[in-house]
């Protein structure tokens, strides 16, 4: 009889703790959204390296919310401690009103610990280290005027800030939403963790989704703002850049930006450190590690833990819809401003600059540059804009880090 009673109690306990009893409807909706993201990442290949870990983190946290639980301590009397743990040895004690209690710790969930890398701003600069080790700044050094286009594309960030303020967000939240327009995932995550951590899930998902949709979002804007003649401009070949210039460049950039905008130093510093590892030619092992193993490990940690911030209660709100709409506006404004400044450069240089390279000023490396190349070739199949567009594209990475520094400095 006792055996059956124990068996039934065990079954009841397991059922009570199961997801069937603990999960709400929001969790099931989020599981559905995670499945949609799986489809987009696997079938459509939309930024799969990040969207897949994000979707899996989202799935896991909505199935088992305790995976992000913070550690805590329970105060137990000596008798309770012995009953629960079998001993009082090794536990710290606290005396309250003359009574001694034992501090029995409860460890946090797996994602709580992994999330510390996001919360403390460790992962985004490490991702930038890998990005720097993979980036060739040669086109930007050969044509430094590309910095103008990299700056122009950041205007979308500040215009979206205004929209967010008028939609009822606080100034810090508006800054975090605006940075989606920089089209730079690590920068968006870095700024959001500092300014509005409560919006991290929505902002990260919006940022990466729009980055994946660059080939769909940008071309209509580019065609709308340029004439056929402008799109067909063939640009002159870039001058060759010496190895010495490529070595000096990261050092100069990190010195200038760290002095002028210290808040941007962690991102720009790691970006340029990665680039120096590559260009120096003497740290091949470190450069390869930064580009591959380290980058991949951090991507897994960053993706899953950012996805895990998208719990049903957090994500399913009107704010998320507003963020998704504002993110799209930010992205479109950034692309449009880049193209418009490209037109200014076209006029200023007497038709030597193809305005299509301006849209590559939103970071999204190298996708945005490839879009410039593709749209340019639609007008003139013999036109190769890729290397010319890489200049504004990598300038956009630096530009979005500078914009992030401005937002952090003003709003924090």
């Amino acid at each position, binding site marked *: 009889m006792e055996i059956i009673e124990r068996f039934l109690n065990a079954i009841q306990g397991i059922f009570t703790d199961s997801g069937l009893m603990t999960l709400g409807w929001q969790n099931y909706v989020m599981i559905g959204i995670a499945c949609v993201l799986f489809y987009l990442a696997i079938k459509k290949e939309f930024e799969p390296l990040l969207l897949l870990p994000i979707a899996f983190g989202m799935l896991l946290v909505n199935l088992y919310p305790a995976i992000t639980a913070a550690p805590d301590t329970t105060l137990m009397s000596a008798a309770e401690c012995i009953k629960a743990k079998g001993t009082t040895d090794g536990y710290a004690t606290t005396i309250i009103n003359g009574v001694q209690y034992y501090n029995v710790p409860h460890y946090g969930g797996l994602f709580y610990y992994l999330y510390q890398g996001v919360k403390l701003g460790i992962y985004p600069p490490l991702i930038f280290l890998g990005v720097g080790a993979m980036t060739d700044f040669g086109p930007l050094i050969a044509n430094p005027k590309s*910095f103008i286009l990299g700056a122009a594309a950041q205007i979308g960030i500040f215009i979206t800030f205004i929209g967010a303020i008028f939609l009822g967000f606080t*100034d810090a939240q508006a800054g975090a939403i605006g940075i989606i327009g920089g089209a730079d995932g690590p920068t968006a995550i870095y700024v959001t963790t500092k300014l509005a951590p409560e919006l991290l899930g929505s902002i990260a998902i919006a940022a990466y989704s729009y980055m994946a949709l660059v080939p769909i979002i940008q071309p209509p804007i580019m065609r709308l703002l340029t004439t056929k003649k402008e799109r067909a401009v063939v640009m002159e070949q870039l001058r060759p850049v010496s190895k010495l210039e490529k070595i000096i*460049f990261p050092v*100069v950039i990190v010195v200038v930006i760290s002095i*002028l905008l210290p808040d941007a130093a962690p991102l720009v510093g790691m970006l340029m450190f990665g680039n120096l590892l590559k260009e120096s030619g003497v740290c091949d092992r470190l450069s390869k590690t930064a580009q591959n193993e380290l980058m991949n490990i951090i991507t897994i940690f960053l993706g899953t833990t950012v996805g895990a911030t998208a719990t049903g209660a957090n994500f399913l709100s009107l704010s998320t819809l507003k963020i998704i709409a504002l993110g799209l506006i930010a992205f479109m404004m950034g692309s449009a401003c880049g193209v418009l400044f490209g037109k200014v450069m076209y006029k200023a240089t007497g038709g030597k600059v193809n305005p299509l390279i301006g849209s590559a000023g939103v970071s999204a490396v190298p996708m945005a540059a*490839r879009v410039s190349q593709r749209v340019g070739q639609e007008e003139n199949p*013999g036109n190769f804009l890729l290397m010319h567009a890489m200049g504004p594209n990598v300038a956009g990475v630096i*530009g979005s880090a*500078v914009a992030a520094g*401005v937002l952090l400095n003003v709003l924090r």
Partner: protein
Amino acid sequence: MDMMSKLTISASMLLTGFVIVFSVLVFLIFIIWLMGKIVTGAQNSITDRKKQKVKESLKKPEVKAEVEKPRTALKPVKSDTGVSDEVIAVISAAVYSMYGSKEKVRIKSINKSSSRSAWANAGVLKNTRPF
């Protein structure tokens, strides 16, 4: 937050962001342009000095290298489009390595191609096609 303070925050952020981002990046344009000028100038002067040294060493009469004269005097390869001597040497070496010493091959001229061939275009397209 009332309408006035929203307007104030928005306008000040737009102005601050616009001015600082552009100022920093324009400053970087100047720095990178300056760096390019200095480095290119320095490297050019080093190259010129090296060329000068090579010329001077060639002029010295005391160096007598015993070089077997070719059976027939070789005419210099014509290049009307300013192809450098180094490039001519590389192309000649490539041709020699392909045909070997047994074949009688003479390079008459080396000219830059005015435009890519259809095959070259196809290759470049394949390597740069984005999607």
